[in-house]
């Protein structure tokens, strides 16, 4: 089966294409078809997992090129190792649950088929991301899950909040991808390949300078920060809750946002080569986790609480992986790698359970506000218990999945006291806010009557998947318990398998922490012996900070988005006024120059030509009077000229006249004569007219 694992990926794609091109109008058929495809993928994934269990160590890898330019190759390939096999089962099983659940949840939605098409496309992208054997292919599917996340968050795009949220999600994760791309470029530049195994071998052998490895690892981690909603790129995830709840359950809690964690786990070999980069990872993880937990303490929107809880839990995993990198780089043993991946798996189950349970509640009461709920235990006989199971698991109640995986994370922090304290603090807060949520939703008196009146249990298509997930929320974690020889830990391991550590102390401490968190919530919201309002009043600034989500949205709006938009408008003005201004200015200048030349043309050049003509015409108009037509006049004129010539020739008059002067005199004489003759002729004309 393993060699045909690509079918697991392709079946959801097939489902997407079939729905889009053939089944779009047949709603029930498309839903059933799509469930059938993902269920088949699930079965195949389980087969792959079983085969992989039998072949620990020898991983299956295959690839083919889509670009070949000399040494530069871009390939698509698959790599099946325990981590992949585990993720395949997680994604397909939750995928199947979510699709079945959606049949009930999305009933009567006008875009029912489209929803299943999008979900199938998402599953295709997610599975492709999981199965990939190189950075390039991972990046392809990394972006594709981003696209499907965009589509699914904006599924109800008529709502402005949803339209805003999907854009925000896409852009914020893309900011993280900037770092990822730079990381990829450096990998290509220094290693000449994208293949995981080859890159890890080269980095492991020290073929890449250590400073470069640090930058490169942080670059790759930037991608994870965006996708897994880690600080400072976490702000999109709570808004992503605008999507339909099944989407939140699979895309924004169990699988896609865990892709960042998966990426760090997958590329762990890079991080263990750089303690600095790993420390960055660990610090970002713990900081995110703490911040998100504090926000979750005070929120009232059921899905947003879960969203912040998701961010917080992802921070946990990231931190565990980071600490593994730090410890391993420093030559210590650490359970961090399988702690992170183990928690990734258990979290996927209990968090999707919680989201789908929350969806069931929202389906019943038509509100997200837990302050308008209360007492739903009586109305929701199935949803309430399974939701509580999920809450127990996330709170780390003994013997649930969350308990075992969280213990591994706590164990990872030993040796880093600050991390230990904060991790326990976060565990405490997690237990508190989850049970605050449970108590306010399911117990106590109904606070808004009409919400309670109309509340009802959800249909079977929605509750049955919850039962399966509730089962997993308890027992998925048993794969890693001491009684079963820490099976998970030796299966999904990086380098070494399970490392013995102080199990029992650890178990007791985290049990106490989890239970006290639940207890505090009980005292505040059921017994009401501690007033939540008073505490809020007492720590007003902190409360405001948490309530307003640490003001991240406002800060980003003011510090990044607004300046970029303003800058864009400036650039546009610059474009119109300066660059195009220069172009148009040059045109204007040319036109002006043309005007000047035209003036010169008209008055100087043409003026000279016309002037010559004018003089000729004027001369003509005067000289014409010499043409009197009278014989006597011509004779007299000739005689005078002959006499003058003779006088001049023999210098009889002793007048020394130069030629030029003579010419002038001649002309004047001619003119004078002609004018004189004009009067003569005019007189003659008049006379002749008078005679008539």
């Amino acid at each position: 089966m393993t060699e045909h694992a690509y079918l697991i990926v392709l079946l959801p794609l097939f489902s997407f294409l079939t729905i889009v091109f053939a089944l779009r109008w047949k709603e029930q058929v498309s839903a059933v078809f799509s469930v059938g495809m993902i269920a088949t993928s699930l079965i195949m994934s389980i087969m792959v997992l079983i085969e992989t269990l039998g072949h620990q160590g020898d991983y299956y890898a295959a690839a083919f090129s889509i670009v070949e330019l000399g040494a530069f190759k871009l390939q698509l390939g698959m790599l099946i190792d325990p981590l992949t096999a585990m993720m395949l089962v997680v994604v397909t099983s939750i995928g199947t649950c979510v699709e079945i659940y959606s049949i009930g949840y999305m009933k009567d939605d006008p875009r029912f088929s489209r929803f299943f098409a999008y979900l199938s496309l998402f599953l295709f992208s997610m599975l492709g991301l999981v199965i990939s054997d190189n950075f390039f292919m991972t990046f392809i599917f990394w972006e594709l899950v981003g696209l499907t996340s965009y589509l699914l968050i904006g599924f109800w795009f008529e709502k402005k909040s949803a339209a805003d949220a999907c854009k925000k999600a896409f852009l914020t994760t893309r900011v993280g991808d900037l770092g990822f791309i730079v990381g990829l470029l450096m990998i290509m530049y220094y290693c000449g390949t994208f293949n995981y195994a080859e890159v890890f071998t080269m980095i492991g052998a020290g073929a890449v300078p250590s400073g470069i490895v640090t930058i490169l690892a942080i670059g790759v981690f930037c991608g994870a920060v965006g996708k897994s909603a880690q600080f400072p790129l976490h702000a999109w995830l709570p808004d992503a809750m605008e999507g339909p709840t099944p989407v939140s359950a699979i895309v924004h809690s169990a699988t896609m946002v865990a892709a960042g964690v998966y990426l760090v786990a997958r590329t762990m070999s890079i991080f263990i080569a750089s303690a600095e980069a790993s420390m960055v990872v660990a610090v970002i993880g713990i900081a995110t986790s703490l911040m998100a937990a504090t926000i979750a303490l005070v929120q009232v929107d059921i899905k947003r609480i879960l969203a912040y809880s998701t961010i917080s839990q992802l921070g946990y995993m990231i931190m565990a992986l980071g600490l593994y990198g730090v410890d391993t780089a420093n030559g210590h043993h650490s359970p961090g790698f399988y702690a992170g991946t183990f928690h990734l798996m258990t979290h996927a189950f209990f968090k999707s359970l919680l989201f789908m349970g929350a969806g069931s509640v929202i389906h019943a009461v038509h509100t997200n506000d837990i302050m308008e709920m209360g007492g739903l235990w009586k109305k929701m006989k199935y949803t309430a218990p399974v939701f509580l199971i999920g809450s127990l698991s996330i709170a780390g109640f003994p013997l649930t999945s969350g308990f075992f995986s969280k213990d591994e994370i706590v164990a990872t922090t030993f040796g880093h006291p600050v991390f230990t304290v904060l991790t326990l603090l976060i565990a405490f807060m997690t237990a508190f806010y989850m049970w605050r949520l449970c108590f306010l939703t399911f117990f106590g008196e109904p606070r808004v009557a009409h919400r309670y009146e109309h509340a009802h249990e959800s249909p079977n298509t929605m509750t049955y998947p919850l039962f399966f997930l509730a089962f997993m929320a308890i027992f998925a974690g048993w794969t890693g318990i001491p009684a079963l020889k820490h099976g998970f830990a030796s299966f999904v391991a990086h380098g070494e398998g399970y490392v013995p550590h102080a199990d029992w102390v650890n178990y007791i401490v985290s049990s106490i922490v989890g239970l006290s968190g639940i207890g505090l919530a009980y005292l505040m919201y059921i017994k009401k012996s501690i007033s939540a309002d008073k505490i809020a009043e007492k720590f007003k600034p902190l409360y405001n900070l948490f309530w307003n989500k640490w003001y991240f949205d406002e800060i980003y709006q003011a510090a990044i988005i607004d300046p970029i938009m303003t800058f864009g408008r400036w650039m546009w003005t610059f474009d119109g006024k300066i660059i195009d201004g220069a172009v148009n200015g040059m045109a204007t200048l040319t036109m002006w120059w043309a005007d000047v030349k035209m003036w010169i043309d008209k008055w100087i050049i043409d003026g000279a030509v016309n002037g010559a003509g004018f003089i000729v015409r004027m001369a003509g108009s005067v000289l014409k009077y010499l043409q009197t037509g009278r014989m006597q006049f011509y004779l007299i004129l000739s005689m005078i000229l002959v006499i003058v010539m003779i006088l001049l020739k023999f210098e009889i008059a002793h007048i020394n006249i130069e030629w030029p002067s003579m010419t002038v005199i001649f002309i004047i004489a001619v003119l004078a004569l002609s004018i004189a003759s004009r009067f003569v002729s005019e007189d003659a004309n008049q006379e002749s007219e008078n005679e008539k």
Partner: protein
Amino acid sequence: MILSSLIFIPIIGMIIVMLLPKEKEDLIRYTAVGISIIPMLVSFWLTYDYFVNFSGSAAMAYMEGPFSWIPSLNVNYHLGVDGISVPMLALTGLLTTISLIASFSIKFRIKEYSAFFLLLEAGMMGVFVALDFFLFYVFWEIMLVPMYFLIGVWGGPRKEYAAIKFFLYTLFGSIFMLVAILIMYFTSDPHTLNMLELIEHGGTLSYTLQMVCFIFFFIAFAIKVPVWPFHTWLPDAHVQAPTAVSVILAAVLLKMGTYAMLRINWPMFPDALHSLSFWIALLGVIGIIYGALVSLAQKDLKKLVAYSSVSHMGYCMLALAAYSSTTAMAGVMFQMISHGLITGALFLMVGVLYDRAHTREIAAFGGLGAKLPVYTALMLMFSMAALGLPGMSGFVAEFMIFVGAFSQLNQYLVGISVLGVVLGAAYMLRMFQNVFLGEFNMAKWGHLTDINGRELLMVVPLAVLTLAVGIYPKPLTDLMSATLENLVQIMSR
């Protein structure tokens, strides 16, 4: 004969169209489309045949000539293609036919319009097959004439301004090209205008002369691309031109600039190229970021797409600067093809909406996704393709550009250029949200109808090709790799 037929079939077609009676508008439209299908099919066949028989070597294929044309000046009729011109021919053939189908919405002087369009096609084909400088220059200039009239007669409200600006801008560049060509001609011995020989000759020129010629050619081609800061003719021309002309302008005409750089400017003057490479990359990066930022501020759909072209062509310049990397050169080619497909499609899509709504103002719309599902799905696909989503051609192009540029150029500069990826997503998604998501205004846009069959016929081939190139780019890289490797060797000499 094949290459000549690509040039002369449109010209014969133009004559046929001119002989038709002008009242028979539909007949003229169908004739024009029918004629343009022939060079399209020829170019497709050529691509296939080149791929099968010639893609292994870098030599010119299907050579015609040199036949003596003006013997006293040693001007020859000389055609030939290699791996970088073949895809451009196919792109030209396809986009011309699609544009002519899109031109069915032109309502007056259809005869003249179709004739000009076919003349334009002849010119474009000519540029991509010419191997003689004189011939190249003739085709380069011939195109200006139909383009000028297509914008100036059938354009929008400011069509005269846009047409003149386009014409003068390009002509301004052409003067520099002419001077550079003359320098090349007179310094070669014996005087020749054969590009292939001049590529050899260019490398032997003195450094100063190389710089002068390089910069002169660069100005001419940069205006066409357009490279920042020579880009301001583009938004005006695009916005004023009718849809089909915008498509051709974006999809083919801009590519002539980058093609000419790759064919002439770059290999001819290696020394100048080496010393100017950083500055070219810088212009490219400025173009990427600047185009994206300005796109972010746009209120008009067409102008947004136009400025996004500035950004996308910036990627080409960035990669062109990395002359020693085959990957970067393949990236340039992919970006040219991909930009042709995607931006061509975006202009078509904007035209489809404009034909119905008679406005292109982004703010006037909202929530169209509810009313026009098929149109929205296609627009989403092309927007995603434009912002470089994997699985589409734009991504492969950008990725190869980044990898190639990173391997040779200043790595900080390349790092900055990556910002374009986020800004690109920002302006595309902003547009998409404002037009397609949100509340639908039933009273205002209730009458809009979804995309029709003819319009699907125009955009679906582009969509399919965008996906095909994006998912399996190998055939295209195989087609070009020998030529590109040879080119890289020449440029790096």
